[in-house]
């Protein structure tokens, strides 16, 4: 790829790349399909968690029982992308690199403390998923670098995660706003750690530490949930378009975060 004369692109699922080629946005001189490299096609359980190869289609995440059990929120987010046809091709690494603020899998991956395993001519580096996207369509990847895998940690005991989005259509739609929550419980169902992430309400997905702080130390009572929603609303800086107004996206972000927190709490074994 380094020797390509014109623009060179890496092909994983291709569900974004081929659309961009079709629209004339890009005209690659070279396309390199990585899917024949066995490691790109595997979900590997490691001592520290899961390694999802850059070519693994999202449908495969849903068929991996161990991954579904460990990170149900990440899997449900990845499985919301597109149709069955698209699920058979699209990848979470590609979803991240496409750098849409409305990407479904990204808030869930950030909540899960996922890391992108990046490789390039200069070697390998590991970067937190929230550091990869810098703006709509823009990433912090250097020229010649690509993501070879997404690495998820092993969840802490008594943890749960969840992802919810709002779309006018049930399927085949892009999030108007979304929320992911990953939390861990201590004795008596008290939240001891949390990550709250919003999608489609800013140029990148937003990690909201204030929202996490609002529920840490609580048993997710009504006051804590109200504070969580308020912190989420305060973190929103959405666009105003036909798909959702600023006011609508802001309010729904709080509602979704509250519901996602409840779902994550249940999954963590809280009552």
């Amino acid at each position, binding site marked *: 790829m380094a020797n390509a004369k014109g623009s060179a692109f890496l*092909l994983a699922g*291709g*569900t974004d790349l*081929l*659309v961009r*080629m*079709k*629209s004339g946005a890009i005209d*690659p*001189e*070279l*396309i390199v*399909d990585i*899917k024949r490299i066995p490691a790109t096609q595997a979900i590997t359980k490691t001592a520290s968690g899961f390694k999802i190869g850059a070519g693994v*289609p999202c*449908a495969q995440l849903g068929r991996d029982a161990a991954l579904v059990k460990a990170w149900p929120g990440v899997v449900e987010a990845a499985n919301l992308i*597109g*149709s*069955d*046809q*698209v699920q*058979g*091709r699209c990848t979470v690494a590609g979803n991240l690199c496409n750098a849409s603020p409305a990407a479904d899998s990204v808030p869930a991956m950030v909540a899960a403390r996922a890391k992108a395993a990046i490789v390039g001519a200069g070697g390998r580096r590991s970067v937190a998923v929230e550091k990869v996207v810098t703006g709509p369509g823009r990433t912090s990847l250097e020229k010649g670098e690509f993501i070879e895998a997404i690495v998820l940690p092993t969840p802490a005991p008594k943890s749960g995660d969840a992802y919810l989005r709002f779309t006018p259509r*049930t*399927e*085949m739609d892009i999030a108007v706003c979304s929320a992911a929550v990953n939390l861990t419980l201590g004795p008596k169902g008290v939240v001891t750690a949390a990550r709250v992430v919003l999608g489609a309400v800013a140029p990148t997905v937003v990690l909201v530490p204030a929202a996490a702080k609002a529920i840490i130390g609580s048993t997710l009572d009504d006051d804590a949930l109200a504070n969580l929603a308020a912190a989420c609303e305060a973190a929103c800086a959405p666009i105003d378009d036909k798909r959702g107004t600023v006011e609508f996206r802001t309010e729904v972000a709080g509602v979704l975060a509250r519901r996602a927190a409840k779902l994550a709490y249940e999954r963590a074994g809280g009552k």
Partner: protein
Amino acid sequence: MAGVHVSTTVNGDDVEFVCPGSESLLDVLRNRLGLTGAKEGCGTGDCGACSVTVDGQLVCACLMLGAEVEGRQVQTVEGMAQGDQLHPLQRQFIENAALQCGICTPGFLMAAKALLDRNPDPTETEIRYALAGNLCRCTGYDKIVRAVSATAKELSQEATTKGSKKR
């Protein structure tokens, strides 16, 4: 972009072709192999009219490069009927009037077959979710859902009367 030589299997037949590296599987099927069942509706993976399977996985042929199917097993709507014998889904689509203009039909048939192959007894909700990637502007979908449901019923009855015969 330079031509790529590809050897693959389409509907059980060995096939070879040369195509530019940037050419979609859909263009290869339609323009090089003469298989015009898969249609181009949108070219962006939204309408499902170009649905085919590759190694059993349902995909949009417009979202794959022809070069990607080297050594794979491709199935298109042309491979559904056995000679003059229509696939039960094809027959039920006709009996239930599940098509009008017909542009979307090959894609619906392939998506419905992929569904029934993995879930022989789907609920109406499961059928509607599985076909969410296929758009039809004529039927309003009800007749398509009924045709798929009727096929599932027919195949399960056939399985009970004829033992475990599979189509």
